[in-house]
C-alpha cells in the first residue's frame, strides 16, 4: 500500500504546485477584459464585462447592441447587492478585477464619485453631451465632487409609490380602488391609522407592512435633507426629520403592524407568495421585483400614491473603472444602455423608471399600464412621482449609516430594546463611522 501512495504522491504534488503557480500568474492578467492590448484594432474581438447587483433588464439590449457592434462580446456578472459594492471598492483599491462597466446604486454613488482618479472621465468620450437628456439632480450625482468630471451616467430613478394587496384590503373592509386608497393616507400618520384599521380586521396570516426598514428609508428620502448635510457631515443626531422617521417607523412596530420580514431575505420572498403583508413601499424598481417574486398573485397587487409626498429611493448609475482595458468601448456601451429609447424599453420590461424627463410626457410611457398590477397606469404614477422629486444630498458613508439605523429598527422589532435604548445605540454606532 505505502509505496503505491508514495509513487502517486509526487506527481500529484507537482501537479498541484504547478496549478497553483499558473493560477497566481493568471490572476494579474485577465482583469476586466480578455485581451491585453490597450487599444483595440479594427475588427478585433473585444469582451466587455458588465458588473451588476440585480437584473437590470439589459439582456435584450446586449443582443441588439451586438447586431450593430459585431466585434463586441458582453459578459454580465450579477452579484448580491452588498457584495457587489464592497467588491467594487476592493477591486478599485487593488487595481484588479473590476468590470469594464460597473453599476453603482445611489446609496453608494458618493462613495465612488469621491474617488475620481479610479474612474474614467466619460467626458473624454463625448458623453457630456448627454447632460441635456437627464434630470438635473441625477446628472449631478454622477459627477466628481468638484463637478468637472463625468464619472457615471444614470440608469433609473426610484420615484416612490405604495403597492398594496387589493384582496387583503377588501377582506379588511378597507377601500380597494387605487384613488380611494391614495386618499386614505396623505400623511404617514394616516398611513399608520389605516394600518390599525387593517390590523383590527384580523385578516388571517397578513400584517399591514413587511418591515419598517424600507419605510424609514422612504420617509428620510422625502425630507429636504437626509442623513448628511451638504458639507458631508452626518447629521442623524440633529436632523428632526430623521428622528421623526425613526419614531414613525417604530410606531408601526409598536402597533403590531409589521410582518417582521427584512427586505430581500428569503422569508420576505416567501412572504410575497403567501400574502404575509398588505402594503410595501414601492419605488419603481420594486414593481419588477414583486412581479418576479409573487408570480401567482397577478392581479392582486395595485399601486397607490405614497404618503408624505414624493421622494426618491434607489436608482443607479453606470461607471467605467479606470482599470478597464477598453474604456472607449465601455463608454459607448453605457451611452447605449442609458439612451432614451432603451431606458423606456427597460421600464416597460422591468419597471425601473427612466431618469430622462423627456420620456415622462411621452404618450407611450404616460399610457403604459401593467396587467400584473390590475392595469395600474404605472407610467403615469411614476412620471408624476419623478416630476415632483426634490433631490437630496447623499454622503459617502450612506450605506454604513443606514445599516446602523436598520439594526436599531431591527432591535426594536425583535423586542430587544425600547425605541429610546435603540436610538441611543444607533447614535453611538453612527459616531464610530469614520
Amino acid at each position, binding site marked *: 500500500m505505502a509505496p503505491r501512495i508514495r509513487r502517486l504522491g509526487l506527481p500529484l504534488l507537482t501537479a498541484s*504546485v504547478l496549478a497553483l503557480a499558473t493560477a497566481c500568474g493568471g490572476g494579474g492578467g485577465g482583469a476586466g477584459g480578455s485581451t491585453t492590448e490597450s487599444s483595440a484594432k479594427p475588427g478585433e474581438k473585444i469582451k466587455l464585462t458588465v458588473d451588476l447587483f440585480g437584473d437590470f433588464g439589459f439582456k435584450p439590449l446586449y443582443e441588439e447592441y451586438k447586431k450593430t457592434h459585431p466585434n463586441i462580446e458582453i459578459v454580465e456578472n450579477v452579484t448580491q447587492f452588498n457584495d457587489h459594492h464592497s467588491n467594487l471598492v476592493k477591486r478599485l*483599491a487593488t487595481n484588479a478585477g473590476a468590470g469594464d462597466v460597473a453599476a453603482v446604486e445611489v446609496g453608494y454613488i458618493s462613495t465612488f464619485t469621491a474617488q475620481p482618479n479610479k474612474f474614467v472621465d466619460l467626458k473624454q468620450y463625448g458623453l457630456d453631451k448627454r447632460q441635456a437628456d437627464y434630470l438635473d439632480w441625477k446628472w449631478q450625482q454622477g459627477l466628481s465632487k468638484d463637478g468637472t468630471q463625468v464619472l457615471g451616467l444614470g440608469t433609473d430613478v426610484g420615484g416612490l409609490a405604495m403597492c398594496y394587496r387589493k384582496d387583503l384590503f377588501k377582506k379588511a373592509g378597507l377601500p380597494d380602488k387605487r384613488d380611494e386608497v391614495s386618499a386614505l393616507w396623505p400623511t404617514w400618520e394616516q398611513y399608520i391609522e389605516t394600518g390599525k384599521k387593517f390590523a383590527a380586521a384580523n385578516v388571517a396570516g397578513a400584517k399591514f407592512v413587511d418591515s419598517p426598514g424600507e419605510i424609514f428609508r422612504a420617509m428620510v428620502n422625502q425630507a429636504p435633507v437626509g442623513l448628511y448635510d451638504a458639507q458631508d457631515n452626518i447629521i442623524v443626531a440633529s436632523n428632526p426629520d430623521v428622528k421623526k422617521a425613526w419614531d414613525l417607523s417604530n410606531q408601526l412596530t409598536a402597533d403590531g403592524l409589521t410582518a*417582521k420580514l427584512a427586505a430581500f431575505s428569503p*422569508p420576505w420572498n416567501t412572504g410575497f407568495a403567501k400574502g404575509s403583508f398588505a402594503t410595501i413601499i414601492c419605488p419603481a424598481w420594486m414593481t419588477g421585483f414583486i412581479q418576479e417574486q409573487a408570480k401567482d398573485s397577478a392581479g392582486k397587487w395595485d399601486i397607490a400614491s405614497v404618503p408624505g409626498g414624493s421622494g426618491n429611493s434607489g436608482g443607479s448609475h453606470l461607471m467605467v473603472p479606470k482599470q478597464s482595458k477598453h474604456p472607449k468601448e465601455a463608454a459607448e456601451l453605457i451611452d447605449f444602455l442609458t439612451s432614451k429609447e432603451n431606458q423606456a424599453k427597460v421600464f416597460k420590461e422591468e419597471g425601473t423608471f427612466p431618469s430622462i424627463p423627456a420620456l415622462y410626457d411621452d404618450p407611450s410611457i404616460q399610457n403604459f399600464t401593467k396587467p400584473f398590477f390590475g392595469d395600474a397606469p404605472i407610467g403615469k404614477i411614476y412620471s408624476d412621482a419623478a416630476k415632483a422629486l426634490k433631490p437630496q444630498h447623499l454622503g*459617502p458613508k450612506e450605506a454604513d449609516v443606514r445599516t446602523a439605523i436598520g439594526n436599531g429598527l431591527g432591535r426594536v422589532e425583535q423586542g430587544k430594546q425600547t425605541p429610546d435604548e435603540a436610538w441611543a445605540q444607533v447614535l453611538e454606532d453612527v459616531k464610530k463611522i469614520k
Partner: protein
Amino acid sequence: MRHTLDMRVSPYAYVAPFFLLFCAFGLFPLVYTAWVSLHEWTLLSDTQEFVGLGNYSTLLADEYFWNATFNTLSIGVLSTVPQLALAIWLAHLLNRRLRFQTLFRISLLLPNVTSVVAVVVIFSQLFGRDFGLINWMLSWFGVGHIDWAAGTATSHVALSVMIMWRWTGYNALIFLAAMQAVPRELYEAATLDGASNLTQLRRITIPMIRPTIIFVVIVSTIGAMQIIAEPMLFGQSSGGGGGIATGGPDRQFQTLALFVYEQGFANSTFDFGYASAASWLMFVAVVVVAGINFLITRRVKGGLV
C-alpha cells in the same frame, strides 16, 4: 559521495514545498497582519499611520468585540460538547459487526461533503419563524412560535445544530478508526467478566483512544472558534434583518471571525488595522482555549488501570 548527499539533502527537498507554501500563505500573512494591526490602516487611504497598540486598546474597550467573543465561546461550547459525545457514541455503535457497515460509515460523512451554504440555507428554513418545520413540530406540543434568529440563546442553538450536522459524522469516523485499533480481546474479556456495554465504552474504549480524543477536541475547538460562514449566511437568510456581517440587528450571533470580517470588509471604511488587531486577539484566544481544552482532556485517564 553522491549517494550520501542525496540521502542527506533530498528529505529536505521533499518537505520544502510544504514549508515554502506555508511561509507564503501561513507565516507571512500572520506576521504581516501583526504589522498592519499596529497602524491606522484602511484599504482606501494612501498613507498608514503607526499607532502602536492603539488598535488593541480601542478593541479591548469595544463592547461589540466582547459580545462577539461571548457568542463565539457560547456557540463553541453548545456545538462541540454534544457533538463529540454524540460522535463517540455513534462510533461505538458502528464499532461492531453490522450489515451494510460501509454504507453506514459513508453516510456519516455525507453531511460533511455538502456545501455549507446549502446546509445553512436549508436549516434557516427549518428554523424559520413563520413557516419553519421545527416550529411546526413544536406547535404539536403547544410550544408557541419561536423566532429562532431573534433570540440570543435560540440563535446559538440553531447555529450549533448546523455545525453539529456537518461535523458529528466526520468526528465519529475519526473515533471509529481509533476504536478499531483497540484489541478485541479486551472487550471479549470484559464481556466474560460481565461488563455492560456502557461500562466497556467508559472503561476500555475511552481510555484507549485518549490521544485521538485530545486531537479531535483540539481540532474542533479551533474550528469552533473560527466559525464565520454559518452566522453570516444565517443572518442573511433568516429574515431577521441586520447588516451583512453584524449577525442579527442586536449582534446576537456575531462571532469573532464575523466581527473581523465586518471591520475589515463589510464596512465601507475597510478598517484593516482594526480588523488585523481583532484577528490577532482572536488568534490568542484560540490558542488559550485550545490549551485549556488540552489540559482538561489530558486528565482523562490513559491506558488501562
